[in-house]
């Protein structure tokens, strides 16, 4: 197997992102104070239940493929950075992260990829982008945020501040319903790839800590594409 340490980690982080087309102009742009207040309300709501799980449907439009790649499954998240994502269907996969390590397991191929996080690599920025929509903690630090009312809900538009994020994310839009639950996220990458993720059946029931642990089943071929 080729030593993938040679590859730019940015490519991996880009590939990890999920997004879709950017919405049209916002109907009612909120003034900055209202944006701050809205973020405060979101934070307050989530502080009471620091975990979330939901079904998702993802549509990925990448230059490499002629048609969008569609997948669906369920996602779990618990602050500060525990994360699990299971893709169902013909090509299932399980992505698990505890903030230090990221596993992607492919049962069909009996293979797993392991990535170390926390090295300030673009991979970390990619994971931060993924969890931002689920967490919305500290997003002001990493993004310039504008918001608008959309029907009874809201649309947050996040423009990355840090160059590391800018390299993989051009724009990030989060659609919230009136209960401030994430309905859809749309990401546009600098290379033109777009990922749209829709969420449903959101619950904030407690999540077993084992959900965020992963041990490859016996016989799994484990690779570390970016090195140890």
């Amino acid at each position, binding site marked *: 197997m*080729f030593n*993938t340490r040679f*590859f730019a980690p940015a490519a*991996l982080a880009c590939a990890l992102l999920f997004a879709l087309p950017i919405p049209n102009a916002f109907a009612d742009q909120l003034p900055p104070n209202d944006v701050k207040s809205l973020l405060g309300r979101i934070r307050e709501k989530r502080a009471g239940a620091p975990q979330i799980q939901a079904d998702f449907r993802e549509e990925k439009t*990448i230059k490499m493929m002629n048609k969008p790649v569609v997948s669906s499954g369920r996602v779990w998240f618990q602050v500060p950075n525990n994360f699990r994502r299971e*893709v169902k269907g013909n090509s299932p996969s399980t992505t698990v992260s505890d903030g230090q390590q990221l596993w992607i397991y492919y049962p*069909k191929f009996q293979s797993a990829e392991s990535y170390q996080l926390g090295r300030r690599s673009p991979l970390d920025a990619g994971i931060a982008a993924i969890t931002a929509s689920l967490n919305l903690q500290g997003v002001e630090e990493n993004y310039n945020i504008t918001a608008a009312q959309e029907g009874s809900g809201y649309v947050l538009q996040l423009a990355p*501040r840090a160059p*590391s994020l800018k390299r993989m994310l051009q724009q990030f839009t989060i659609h919230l319903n009136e209960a401030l639950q994430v309905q859809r996220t749309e990401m546009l990458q600098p290379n033109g790839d777009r990922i749209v993720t829709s969420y449903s059946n959101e619950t904030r029931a407690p999540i077993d800590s084992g959900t965020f642990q992963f041990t490859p089943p016996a016989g799994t071929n484990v690779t570390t*594409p970016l090195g140890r």
Partner: protein
Amino acid sequence: MPLHSTISHLVTRRRGVVWLGVALLVAASVFVLVTHMRLDTEVLNLLPRGFESVEGLKVYNRDFAQVRELTFALVAQPQDVDRLEEFAPQFAESLRQQPWCARVLAGSPLETPDGVADLQKMAVPLLLNLEPATFEETLAALRPDKIRERLRRLHDEIDAGSPRPQFELMLDPLGVIAPALKPFASNASIEEDQPLTSPDRTMRVFITVTNQPSIGAFECQKLMREVNAFCATARQGWDGGPLEVLVTGRSAYVGEISLSMRHDIIITVLGSIVLVGGVFFIGFGRWLPLIGMGFSLLLCCLVAIAAGLLIFGELNMVTVGFCAILIGLGVDFAILIFGRYQQARDDGSDHAEAVGEAVKNLGKAVFFGALTTAVGFMALVLSNSAGFTQLGVLIAIGIFLAGLFMMSVFFLFVPEATTPLRNDWIFALVKRYVRATVRRPGTVLWIAVPLLLSLTGIAVSPKPRLIFDASTESMEPKSSEAGYALHTIMDKMPTRWEPAIGIVRAQNAQELHDYWQKVAAHWSQAQSNGKIRSFSTPAALALSPQREAANRETLHTLDVPAARQALETAVAEEGFSAETFDSGFTLLDELARIAQPEAPIPDWRSLLPKASSWWFLVDRFFAHDPLLTTGFVTTNEPITTQEQKQMLTRELPVAGVPMTLSGWSFTLTDLIPWSHRQLILISAMMAVFECGLLALLYRDWRLWLIHIATLIFSVTAMIATMKLLHLPLNLLNVLAFRLVLAVGVDYGIYVLLVWQKARQLDHDVAGVVKPVILAGLTAVSGFGALGLANNPTLAGLGIACGVGIFWSLAATVFFTLPAAAAAEPKSWREESLQTRVKYTEHV
């Protein structure tokens, strides 16, 4: 006519002839200087010859592209790390626009716009260099069924959400480039160890290769003027807090060092002249003899440098210190001779008689003084260092010239009519001291001996330790901007330290390939055993003509049209975009072409664009001559000890592969035993020589013993002082010990020879102790002036010599004289002088 009379006659009665001789000598010397002046600024030439590591370092510095590398660093405040990240590409682009810049490395070559494409261009030659079995296995991936299977799998993985297929297809659409590049990719390990961004993200490093036509001092100065001008404007577009723009590299160091030579020459020569002149004037209150002394010393310097240029063809920068050392040494003769001349005038002699008297009485002492000093400096020839050999020879020539000129040219500046010094407080003090010492030598000895013994105890005691600094920093100029840049980069990159290098030269490409295959396997084993941390070699790029021929045969079995058809079908079936596979189709065409036996295989060097960042990786390994190569070994810790060096010497070489181990840290560590040998063996040889000389000179075992004890006390007190003041010894200032022995022995000779023959103590002994003290103080001043030099080798040498000579003087005055008085008591007969000396206060 006796010699002293001839000299006296010439300098007093035939002054025009002497002046004419001086003018001719000056003219000839200036002519040689103008026509032959070449300065060697290469610091490596200060290191001794005969060491493989030194020779390896010279080869690495001379023949590899790193000699033209400049490393830039941007250092920002912690709150500006994001701004720095945004500014870095702009700075890199500015660098690329500079006319002196050939290439810039600002990040992983793969992250550059053409990084992937450049790598793909090199794929074919590297593919043909695979082991035949691996090549066959790799080629199997181009079978139609394998192509279809791979693309299906990649599609499935994309569906499953794996990020890996995207970057795999981006680089290697056919699945054959990755195996071809695998050996090459393993060389990236050292890049991982040496990142271009500090862990705290406050520093970004940019490596550039310049296009300077030569690496000489003046070219480096010219380049650095342009680089500094760029640095001054490089912050344009930066909107954060303070941002440091640092630059280091060989050219930066050479530019600084060569410029600092001018500073060193001016500062040390002027410093020596001012300090020495000041001491002389305080001692004798005369201007004209002082000017004569200065003129004679400059004449010595001029003639010796001209002689040095004729002998060596060029002079190393360290010989800059020669003038200051010569002034410090030569002034002794002037002070002693003028002191004796003045004494003769005070005794009633006229000018010509006093000149003859001075030459007659001190000729022997000056000759032996010059001899011991010259031998001391000539011993530098044994150092095997070109720079120090030149220094030793120049001083040996200069010191003999100083002896000659001080007994001839110097007198041209001494006026015939002279008036006595009205208030010679120095002589009064010296006389009082000599009188007290001669009457009660035990009192002085009771104070001096315990002090000197205590210092000896400190010197031989294991604690405190004498600091021996063999680090690369000990060779760096003081206040060096290049040094500051280097240390800042090193400090912010904790994992970054200098690797050891193994240089391998081969006769042909196949031999080079075979050598590096063996070395890579051997070093890999050493890494597995934990002996080394990591390594990188040019093995992947040292292509084998034999493998190439064998693999070309195998390539005939590849059905390229079938592979092409299978790829087209699979791309369409799996829904991949055709443009993703453009480079794959190109590669298939290229493989079809080179499968023809007559088709030439391109040299990978010609395939890589000149501006490609991959050259940074390539140039690390290959010299301008592609058969001269180097590998790098990162050790588990920075190389500082003999044990580490010996372990590397044991573990890294491979049987049958001629390899030169080197690297700065490795070399300096390698030189520690040499340096110790310099310190102990050669100094001991010097001591034996001087012991024999002194025995011959005194023919009195008690005086001989006193003088030997004086020398021991001088050296041990010097060591103790260096320990207590934390003055470090380095690879070069260990030479100070022999210089101190050579210079310090003179003072004892002057005092003991006079003591041995003295009939009138006040007249004879006190009359010589004053010039000795003045001479000692001027020598300390002369060497101390070297401490002002930017060049650390000169500054370290000057300070060590200054300390040593101070103790030689102190031991002579406070131990030699009272010990001689105690061993051979003589009565004080001041009253006997009253009728003979006209001006007793003026000696």
